[in-house]
């Protein structure tokens, strides 16, 4: 999606990678998140993207390929970022591999916040420990919604 020219193709590849990530979530026993990933990202967000791509008419999009300078800059950037990233992980003793325990389905009394696979656990934490951020998320969505209304709705010249 990064090198392709057509935004529709880009969006398709994007969906592909999102699904891939969802797969990884499954491998990591985070089933609920995998579902969420598919539903929200692939289902909602990417549809929105595609809708907008269509709405804005793909034809307008220029077919120019990136200039040499851009490619060079990109190469250098990749190199540098890769270098930095490798520096993060090049000393394994700094990030030892923990023993992977088989996850429970539901939280236990001793370790309420240990990793579990059950969906209920998300509910429990969201409504107890993460109550405040959860409520704020609602507020965030409200703001986003109002913002989108402000930006998109056709106002008549009468209010306030």
């Amino acid at each position, binding site marked *: 999606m990064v090198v392709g020219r057509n935004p529709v193709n880009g969006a398709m590849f994007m969906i592909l990678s999102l699904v891939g990530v969802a797969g990884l979530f499954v491998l990591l026993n985070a089933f609920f998140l995998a579902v969420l990933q598919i539903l929200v990202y692939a289902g909602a967000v990417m549809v929105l993207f595609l809708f*907008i791509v269509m709405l804005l008419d793909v034809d307008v999009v220029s077919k120019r390929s*990136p200039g040499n300078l851009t490619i060079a800059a990109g190469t250098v950037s990749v190199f540098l970022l890769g270098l930095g990233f490798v520096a993060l992980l090049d000393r394994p003793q700094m990030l030892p591999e923990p023993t*992977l325990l088989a996850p429970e389905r539901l939280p236990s009394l001793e370790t309420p916040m240990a*990793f579990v696979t059950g969906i209920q656990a998300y509910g429990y934490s969201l409504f107890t420990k993460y109550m405040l951020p959860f409520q704020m998320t609602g507020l965030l969505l409200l703001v986003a919604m109002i913002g989108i209304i402000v930006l*998109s709705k056709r106002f008549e010249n009468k209010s306030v």
Partner: protein
Amino acid sequence: MTLHSVILVAGILFITGFLGVLLRRNTLIVLMSVELMLNAVNLAFVGFSRYNNTMDGAVFVFFIITVAAAEVAVGLAILVALFRRRQTVMLDTINQLKD
């Protein structure tokens, strides 16, 4: 599958997204690239959450997904409004404000 490999994949995804923002001229794809970066973070969170055996990372992913969706929605709204005025989504041409 080791923790390192998960983080490595997340890192690669992150850098890919980074590159997308750096190189692509189409605003839509740039926005997608940002989403990709957020996804990389999500992956890393889940990985750490799983290996560290704590739930918090997984719950955080929930918030990130929400935020990302809201951000995309607002971004697209702005983009559409801007497209109505300028008839373009190319970042190179969105440079009226400068100097």
